[in-house]
């Protein structure tokens, strides 16, 4: 297997356009396990880990820009994130454990495209824009348009994920990240969710459909009424209809549907 280690972003983009069928290696915490288990058969690897241009976390006016190669630990410890998007740090803290957080990147979590990726509901709930780069240039895609189906993304074979652009959260908004997994650490989600209440409700889930999802019907209902206990019950009922989980090795559709409702109820009780 060929192993390419570009020195900078331009070289990385060049390699990727020359070898669109090579696997990009960021932290490798997903890619290496997939290669080891024979699920991912790749002809070669392009190691982009540590390329500085796309590893930074910056403020840009009303927006926060998070480089795809920022590690999960970097996000957990970053001052801008804890000020303007604390819920992302909360989500990253639940990924694997320390070793995985030190090595794994946020771009890897997104590009791996597992419906159970814990950071994904946060990006959905915050209406993130994602920058994709190739040797030909750059383009922005809406995160909610990014997943085309189970483990399918809108990225082209010659593109790299470069950064995530997110509007800073406002002072008054309420938010939560919640996760029910298989155990207390090193635990993949059975259900994970990011909830927001600012000017309107935003509800996003992971692990309850082939891709991470926003629950627009439930959002619309909540946005259109006064939230009291009755409304909360109705929202829980609606959200359980809106998710479309399945039975798999970690859990059952029935349980996931139930828990999706429980988590929303807990959020609504807390706001």
């Amino acid at each position, binding site marked *: 297997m060929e192993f390419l280690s570009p020195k900078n972003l331009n070289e990385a983009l060049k390699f990727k356009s020359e070898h669109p069928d090579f696997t990009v290696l960021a932290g490798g915490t997903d890619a290496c*396990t997939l290669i080891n*288990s024979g699920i991912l058969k790749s002809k070669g690897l392009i190691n982009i880990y540590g390329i500085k241009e796309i590893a930074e976390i910056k403020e840009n006016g009303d927006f926060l820009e998070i480089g795809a190669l920022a590690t999960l630990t970097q996000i957990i410890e970053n001052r801008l994130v804890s000020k303007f998007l604390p819920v992302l740090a909360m989500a990253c803290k639940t990924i694997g*454990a320390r070793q995985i957080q030190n090595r794994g990147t946020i771009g890897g979590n997104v590009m791996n495209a597992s419906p159970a990726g814990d950071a994904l509901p946060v990006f959905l709930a915050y209406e993130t824009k994602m920058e994709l780069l190739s040797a030909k240039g750059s383009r922005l895609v809406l995160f909610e348009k990014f997943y085309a189906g189970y483990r399918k993304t809108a990225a082209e074979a010659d593109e790299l994920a470069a950064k995530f652009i997110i509007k800073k959260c406002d002072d008054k908004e309420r938010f939560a990240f919640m996760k*029910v997994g*298989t*155990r*207390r*650490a*090193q635990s*993949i989600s059975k259900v994970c969710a990011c909830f927001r209440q600012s000017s309107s409700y935003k509800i996003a889930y992971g692990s309850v459909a082939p891709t991470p999802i926003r629950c627009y019907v439930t959002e619309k209902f909540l946005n259109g009424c006064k939230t009291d206990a009755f409304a909360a019950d109705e929202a829980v009922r609606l959200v359980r209809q809106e998710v479309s989980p399945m039975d798999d*090795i*970690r*859990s*059952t559709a*029935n*349980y996931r549907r*139930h*828990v999706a409702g*429980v988590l929303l*109820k807990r959020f609504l009780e807390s706001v």
Partner: protein
Amino acid sequence: MKSVGKNIPRLDGYDKVTGKVKYVDDIDIPDCWRGEVVRSDIPYGRIKKINFDKAFDWDKVMTCTYKDIPGKNATIFLSDDQPILAENLVKHVGEAIVLIAAPSASKALEAKKHITIEYDTLDSVLSIEDSRKRKNVIFGKDNIQAKYKIEKGDVKKGFAEADFIVEGEYRTGFHEHAYIETQGMAAIPRPDGGLTVTGSLQCPYYVLKTLKSALLLDETKINVVQAPMGGAFGGKEDYPSLLGMYVALLSIKSGKPVKIIYSRDEDIVVTTKRHPSIVTHKTGVKKDGTITAMEIDVAFEGGAYSTLSPVVLSRGVIHSAGAYKCENTFCTANCYATNNVPTGAFRGFGAPQVFYALEMHIDKVAERIGMSPHEFRLKNCVEVGDRLSTTQLLKESVGAKECLEKVLSAADFGKKWRNNLDTCAFKHLRTKKGIGLSLYMHGGAFTGSGEGMKSEAGLRLNKDGTISVLTGCTDMGQGSHTVLPQIAAESLGVPAALVNTAVPDTAVVPDSGPTVASRTTMIIGSILVRCAEKMKKKLPDLKKRDVKELLKTYYSEHGELKIIERYILPPEIKWDQEKHCGDAYPVYSWAADVAEVSVDAETFEVSVDKLTVAVDVGRAVNPVLVEGQMEGGTLQALGWALMEDCIYKNGKPVNNRFQTYIIPTAKDAPEWKTIIVEKPFSYGPFGAKGIGELPLDGGAPAIANAIYNATGLRITSLPITPEKLYSLYEEKNKIK
């Protein structure tokens, strides 16, 4: 006492903690080839053809089939039904058919891709139920690998006397050992033309036995050496006989050293598991809490070959009525063959399954008559003078009641149990607290007169003035190679620092029997006490100051001094194997657990907050190591109780990786309270009994009972997942 009862640090600890120790995969063997195994990917079928791709250059690699085995194509255990390499029939997924060795691992893997097997598929049997129904007969006349019956008193009479009869059925599934070091072995040609086989193995003499019979070599031509081991838990009791044969065959045929190290997924697919079980109980009880009759049926799944199943089943059924007074018991047991992977030894050896059933059932019985679980157990718990279900009279060393009393008071059980019961139905509580109890025991050493096989162990005075324990028993992490020197040092009256344990090499150490059945400290320890007495008689007075100098001088004057002794079975042991009646074990270790849990009332996630464990080990030779066994074994039980679940589809585990086979992490571990009770056993070294397996027997039911106390949900199949709790909750609430 100077050594026994002291927390001497593990002799292997420093090298393990600093990473210096070399496991078999780390041992650098010059010019070593790597082996691979071509296996069956169907559960049951006839091999039609083995295709070796003509386009591949087979000259660069070595392959073996059963035809290369000069002697008997079988692993040598109770019955020799398991072939080393399949001949024309495969009986489970992962059964070995062709072996490959090549100068590099990648070459061996490449060669593997060029071998394909054609089969005629046969109708497979994949569950206890299908085997019992004889969906297809795949083993003997009736699919039964072993069966027993144990009778005491008259159950009919017992049920007639009962005020209530309580029934229940309890199930457990496959359980993976999950040792950190996967299985691995190497065969290395010796300069004298012989062969050394080394690796991660519990029982060097078991491996030797199969090698001798399959290769038609005697022990002058072949020796087996245990390499340092990263855990085994019973999983390296019988399996290394297969793997040892693979490397030996490849090495003999190629003339090269050959190593095979399993990847995690290969290990999970092909190596043994704990027996799945279905245990049914029917119990007669009087209003005052007297148990009048116990009828128990134990069904285990043995998998494709019988391996150790007959003895696992025997231990299971003997323990199935537990530590209770009951005049009338009737226990039946069957082990059923299936086309799943052979099940084998796993810490507890049949006892965890039957205690999960019994200890959940006892709570149900107590509830039926309105008695609390602890009062019911205190009333019925055996003491000296009582008889167990095999009619064995308990003469001494019975700490059951003391363990029970100690955990109950340490955990403040009665009060918490009552309180939780009162709050269980409260709808507004997001977290429900629960507390649960279990009482259990584990027979030390082999069943019945099994220890009459006269195991050997010895002591050897070395040139440098140190003394080595010589035993074929191995340290797999349990600490025996620290504890045995402590026993020897105490008996000899020398400082513990002067005694070590020789590397278990069949060319050097005697056959001490296998390292199983919680027997090493108790059996080998007691042989060592006798060796020490003999040795002391030969040596000058060791009360002098510089013992090491004294011993050195003795050696230089007299040469090596080696004393080998045999185990002597306590004479009063009487056992009828046919009827499974009499003294099933020389002695039992006793224990009680209290588990405290928090259950999320909506997501049904369970967190075990605290485990209080009391064990009667006779004598704690090294108390910290005893506590280590208590905590580690109970944590393993926690995993089995709550999350570990081998999911099989068509004979193959789907979750054959640690990503999907979920075991507890450090964060899932509870707060511990361990209590050691010492009721000495007169035939044990300084009173010591076994501790290795006991801690896995009682954790699961204590946790299950705690969950019931918290939620009112009794889950009768392991693991108790939030998914199962939620569906039972849903079911109960729908009916109402």
